[in-house]
């Protein structure tokens, strides 16, 4: 039917513009993937890309095999050496991008350019496997523009345009494709379970760890990416009551506190005086713990409540997770301490002798008044010359001794740890709790934004009759940390870019990220099934989705076809001028009949308006001349006719 003829494709040269654009697309791919590639690989690939571009521009010709093969070997070896593997998400992506750059070395025909461009689109997508934020997605989508422009540049015989102008049609094509893309995005049936194993997650974990040693939080405290977003049913708790518990750590080995996860133990008793219902949208942490406001009353679906009312999910949170909970904000937790309460008093032997001595001296001083001992410790932090800083001096083997009697500077981890050790030394059951505190209340979206930098550690002490009571020693040193949040507490130790106004902007801007995270990133099979709930269909199955997709696509195809088939009628200024004249005469009730020729009509008009007879006759002559004397009337004459029509007045001029 088509009579395909194989023209020797190898003979066709790649236009220079197409090659430049392909290089640009590849550079774009490299740039968006740079965040997760090792820097030396990015740099090396950029050098290869740049030199190939320079070589082709100045010394056109092929790259010898003697260069290509060693580079390929080197790339493979480097990736195996760095990742220890060629497969998996991170090494696979690195290999793909490396191959894309090396493909440029043997791009000599249009076919090579097409293959390279397709591969560039694929590697653009891999950048999204590591980060799905809105800005990243937009930037990656912009990467399609040079890729599509590359394909355009391969077409022969084009009207010459500048390189930048060449992007406009590609951008327009993407913009035109956006509605259909969105429709497909909403309606393409999601998989409720993956077809094959999810990729191996990278080892670098963010979020709270189940171990805490003073000084380990620093990385987290300077990471101001969102950790979670919380919406409350009813009023949000006041800023100094926004404590989100994650881990309860009871075991101290002299260096760090740790959480021991014991399954199958019933949760300790909880007497609720006041409760709050809320919903948390947790961003991926790759850990199983689910932070909760204060003390949770029950565990959400898919998670279990541990003994100390720590909520542990069945699977690591690898994708954003939303869960609704009710928590006690005024409560008595474990009013009767269990028999095995010794574990809340245990301290490692041979560590921190001065701290232990101080605690014991308080015990003797205050006797059994545990609350007084806690107050004494807080008074020590408040008046003992302690300083809050995110960059404290390092501590030695007896870390708490060094901190309490030496450096006297640190942040929440130091204070919580030292306070708990002091309490235990004084014979009061105590433990460290980690989680988040504070957050930014977004008025526009009515939600609380909690960033990783809001990570916090505090203590809980068990007081007879009151159960476990939260004590935040950091508040004794730096009340702003609790009332105003981590940023205010950090004071002037922050970089210039985290100054107030920028922070304010970022906090407000977060509502867009939230919308993106909840509306786009978290749009899964479950949400898709509930898509038609407003229309009374509870469960939208795959068949319905497919049908909707087909209908919607046909609709867009119809719109597209209407655009493609539309043909613009050539403008006829002469006819328009005559219409204008008819309009003017119609106001004097001289209406042109259907099928009445211009000559007949204008004669009739001239008879009806004796005062304008001469003018109308002239106009008629002019029109007939222009219309029938020649194929293509002179533009000046047409213009003159239009002017004459414009100046024609139907009303009598006062003499």
């Amino acid at each position: 039917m088509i009579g395909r003829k194989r023209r020797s494709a190898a003979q066709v040269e790649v236009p220079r513009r197409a090659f430049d654009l392909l290089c640009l697309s590849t550079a774009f791919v490299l740039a968006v993937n740079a965040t997760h590639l090792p820097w030396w690989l990015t740099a090396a690939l950029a050098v290869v890309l740049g030199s190939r571009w320079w070589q082709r521009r100045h010394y056109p010709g092929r790259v010898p095999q003697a260069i290509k093969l060693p580079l390929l070997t080197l790339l493979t070896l480097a990736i195996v050496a760095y990742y220890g593997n060629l497969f998996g998400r991170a090494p696979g992506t690195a290999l793909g991008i490396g191959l894309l750059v090396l493909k440029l070395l043997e791009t000599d025909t249009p076919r090579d350019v097409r293959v390279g461009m397709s591969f560039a689109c694929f590697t653009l997508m891999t950048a999204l496997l590591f980060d799905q934020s809105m800005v990243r997605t937009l930037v990656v989508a912009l990467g399609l523009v040079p890729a599509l422009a590359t394909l355009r540049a391969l077409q022969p015989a084009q009207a010459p345009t500048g390189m930048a102008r060449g992007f406009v049609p590609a951008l327009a094509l993407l913009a035109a494709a956006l509605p259909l893309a969105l429709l497909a995005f909403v309606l393409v049936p999601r998989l409720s379970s993956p077809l094959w194993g999810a990729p191996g997650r990278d080892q670098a974990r963010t979020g709270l760890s189940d171990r805490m040693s003073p000084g380990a939080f620093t990385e987290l405290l300077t990471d101001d990416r969102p950790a979670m977003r919380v919406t409350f049913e009813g009023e949000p708790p006041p800023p100094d009551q926004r404590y989100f518990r994650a881990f309860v750590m009871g075991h101290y080995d002299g260096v760090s506190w740790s959480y021991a996860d014991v399954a199958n133990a019933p949760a300790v008793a909880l007497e609720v005086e006041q409760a709050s219902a809320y919903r948390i949208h947790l961003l991926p942490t790759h850990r199983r713990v689910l932070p909760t406001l204060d003390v949770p009353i029950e565990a959400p679906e898919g998670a279990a409540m541990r003994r100390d009312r720590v909520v542990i999910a069945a699977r690591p949170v690898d994708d954003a997770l939303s869960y609704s909970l009710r928590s006690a904000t005024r409560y008595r937790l474990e009013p009767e301490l269990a028999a095995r309460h010794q574990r809340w008093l245990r301290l490692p032997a041979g560590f921190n002798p001065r701290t232990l001595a101080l605690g014991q001296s308080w015990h003797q001083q205050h006797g059994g008044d545990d609350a007084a001992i806690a107050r004494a410790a807080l008074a020590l932090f408040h008046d003992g010359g302690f300083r809050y800083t995110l960059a404290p001096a390092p501590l030695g083997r007896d870390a708490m001794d060094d901190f309490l009697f030496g450096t006297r500077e640190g942040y929440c981890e130091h204070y919580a740890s030292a306070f708990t050790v002091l309490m235990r030394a004084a014979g009061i059951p105590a433990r460290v709790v980690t989680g988040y505190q504070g957050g930014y209340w977004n008025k526009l979206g009515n939600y609380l934004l909690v960033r990783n930098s809001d990570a916090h550690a505090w203590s809980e002490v068990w007081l007879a009759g009151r159960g476990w009571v939260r004590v935040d020693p950091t508040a004794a040193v730096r009340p702003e940390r609790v009332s105003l949040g981590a940023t205010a507490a950090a004071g002037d130790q922050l970089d210039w870019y985290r100054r107030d106004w920028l922070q304010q902007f970022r906090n407000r801007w977060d509502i867009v990220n939230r919308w993106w995270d909840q509306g786009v990133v978290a749009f899964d099979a479950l949400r898709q099934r509930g898509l038609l709930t407003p229309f009374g269909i509870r469960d939208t199955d795959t068949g319905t989705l497919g049908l909707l997709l087909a209908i919607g696509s046909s609709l867009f195809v119809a719109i597209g076809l209407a655009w493609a088939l539309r043909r613009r009628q050539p403008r006829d200024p002469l006819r328009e001028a005559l219409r204008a004249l008819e309009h003017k005469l119609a106001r004097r009730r001289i209406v042109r009949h259907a099928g009445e020729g211009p000559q007949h009509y204008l004669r009739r008009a001239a008879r009806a308006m004796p005062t304008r007879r001469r003018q109308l006759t002239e106009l008629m002559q002019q029109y007939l001349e222009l219309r029938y004397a020649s194929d293509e009337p002179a533009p000046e004459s047409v213009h003159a006719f239009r002017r004459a029509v414009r100046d024609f007045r139907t009303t009598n001029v006062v003499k």
Partner: protein
Amino acid sequence: MRGLLQRLQRLAEERLPALTRYRRPEPLPITLHRRRIYIVPSGFGLGFSLLLLVMLVGALNYGNNAALLLTCLLGAAAAASMLVAFRNLDGLRLEHVQAGHAVAGEAIELVCTFHSGRLRDAVRLDLGDTSTAFALAGTDATRVSVHLPTRRRGWQPLPRLRLWTSWPLGLFRAWSWLHPEQSVLVWPRPEASGPPPRAMTEDARHMQLHRGEELAAVRDYRAGDPQRHIAWKPSARHDDLLVKDFEQPRSQPQWRLDWRQLGGLEHEARIARLARWLNEAQAQRCSYSLWLPGNDIGSGTGPRHYARCMDALAGLP
């Protein structure tokens, strides 16, 4: 395989004339419209859709909605490019085809004039195995020249032309067949060598004493020009003297080429010899006349006269 396909194609043309209506010759101008533009994905388009499928399955499997959005965007852009490809041909009009001159065995130049209401890029015109790419300006007519190989003299109908494009991304190929109802005249191939015409005698080469009374033009005065040639009236309106320029007398041999003189030759050989004589006469810039059965062309010179004579020769039965 290829032969089988071609046989099938021919069978389809014979059996299904309604489907293959576009293949029949039709009068010019031919305007392309939706019922005669065909679109299929190109090889690259098929490969690209495979890539899209891989991206789609990958994005769905990893539950990565951002990647899915990117895939959908790319897919929708690819689909939209099909409409652009269609629109690149829709409404295009082949106004007329002008044929050049060529003798049998040489390629004849065909100048196709296209009219387009808007800018169109990367349109290609296939004739046989050759393909010519061109861009169309918005308003003016665009002339595209292609070369049609010829074999024998006489009227040769134009073959089917294929107008196609893979604009803008090369993912789809839109095409339409053009079969103008028009024939081109191929001139006879002159014989390689032979005797000169018998009529080329001295009496035919009489001097045309063209004293040149006709005024051709005026030019600037040069030293030595006769005084009576000065154009006084025009000179009065200029600063310099002007001189009347007269056509120069020249000697023009007169050739009488006659079909009847070549009685002993075959039909085609006669034509070939006459063609050679015409060529020679034209090369020597002499005046010649041609007598053919049913056609007597008077004496004349110049390319138009030559073309008239050759056309007459080519048109012989």
